[in-house]
């Protein structure tokens, strides 16, 4: 081999990524090329020095304990969620008791079942509230980040036939954009964003001079199609779901005008003639 080793080969050499055949060729070349040998040594030193210099920040001593407590708390919540005792195995045994015993057992059963139902409903509500608050915070953060510094969207277009195809291969679902938007409402572009560690489509609209971020994500599980509204720091957050999608919007525009846009988006998902291709 007379050609010098390329950068990629040199890096793969010091990173231990060469195949045995590539390694043999590289060694053959290094045996007869002082400049490549010197360069390989240089790269190797750089790698080991980077390994030492990069290991710079140590977690605070109590972080491990705090994380262990956090996971324990999360675990107890998870356990509480799955603690839904199946009923129906014991009632038949009570038939042989006297009427008083039967009545007492029935009362106890009803009381305990009610308690369990109330407890489960409270846990569900609490979990939903926490999850919703986390979602509102994430959505709000991303919207503010979009507004901050007037950053250009990743895809800049007012054409739904440009924006929708841009997401092909980037998100594991598809969606429709409305054929016509409410008055004074314009599609500005879109970003690939992440919510709860899942890729989502962030559509950017303007209504007058107000910006709107609409996040579309794949529906998780069999979530019900409930709608809810929230306010955060003067911004309105709205969520609704369709058969396949969960849609969250955030803006400081008048809620009625935001609702018009969301209605158009919701209608577009139902497959009516106005849907985009």
């Amino acid at each position, binding site marked *: 081999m007379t050609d010098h080793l*390329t950068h990629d080969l040199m890096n793969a050499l010091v990173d231990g990524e060469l195949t045995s055949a590539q390694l043999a060729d590289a060694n053959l070349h290094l045996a007869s090329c002082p400049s490549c040998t010197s360069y390989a040594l240089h790269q190797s030193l750089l*790698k080991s020095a980077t390994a030492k210099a990069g290991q710079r920040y140590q977690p605070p001593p109590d972080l491990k304990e705090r994380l262990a407590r956090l996971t324990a708390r*999360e675990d107890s919540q998870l356990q509480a969620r799955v603690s839904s005792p199946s009923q129906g195995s014991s009632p038949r045994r009570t038939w042989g008791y006297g009427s008083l015993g039967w009545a007492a057992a029935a009362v106890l059963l009803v009381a305990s079942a009610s308690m369990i139902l109330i407890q489960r409903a409270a846990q569900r509500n609490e979990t939903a509230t926490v999850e919703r608050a986390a979602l509102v915070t994430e959505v709000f953060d991303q919207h503010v980040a979009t507004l901050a510094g007037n950053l250009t969207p990743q895809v800049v277009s007012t054409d739904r036939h440009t924006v929708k195809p841009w997401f092909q291969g980037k998100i594991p679902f598809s969606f429709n954009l409305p054929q016509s938007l409410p008055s004074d409402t314009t599609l500005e572009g879109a970003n690939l964003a992440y919510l709860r560690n899942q890729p989502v489509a962030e559509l950017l609209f303007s209504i007058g001079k107000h910006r709107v971020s609409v996040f579309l994500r794949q529906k998780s599980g069999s979530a019900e199609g409930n709608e809810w509204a929230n306010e955060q720091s003067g911004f309105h957050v709205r969520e609704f779901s369709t058969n396949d999608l969960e849609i969250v919007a955030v803006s400081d525009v008048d809620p009625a005008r935001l609702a018009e846009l969301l209605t158009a988006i919701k209608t577009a998902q139902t497959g009516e003639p106005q849907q985009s291709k």
Partner: protein
Amino acid sequence: MPWKQKARDSGSQTSAFEGLALPLLPSLYNLAFWLTRNATDAEDLVQETFLKALRGFASFEPGSNFKAWIFRILRNTYLTSRAGLAVNRTISLEDELSEAGESGPAQYPEAAIDRHTPELNLLQIADRDALHAALETLPPPLLEVILLCDVEEMKYREIAATLEIPIGTVMSRIARARAALRATIETQRAPLGEFRA
């Protein structure tokens, strides 16, 4: 009873998660700090990563690469933070353009390779402060790839899985990161060389 079994499973899952995740805490925190450049944000990022990972642990396939999996969660969590979004968007275009120019076999003009490695340059590499300063100048896409490669000792395919990019991009980013580190160190060295001359 099935619900008790489920609760037991949940408990054992959590302890399995802790067994895998807690030993990685120093590594996760180190990367979080490099990305956020801030102790408070780094702690928040690690905590959020742990919670997300625990909630999604049921979907983790036993036997697959847990380290790559949890680092991916940390990185995606960072990308959704305000700082991460701003940085990512600023860098990505420049990065995509550069990488587009490197498509195909990664051949570098040999003239661009400085094969002379002065002794002074080698000494400079050994200077940890100089290297810290050089690392701090790297843009996040190059910084994260070099930290995963050199500090975490991940293989290219693990890095590709963590960052969700092709292996070719991993290789080109590593090459660019090391070239940038060398260039920065060389610049730091220049005034000293001039003084000695």
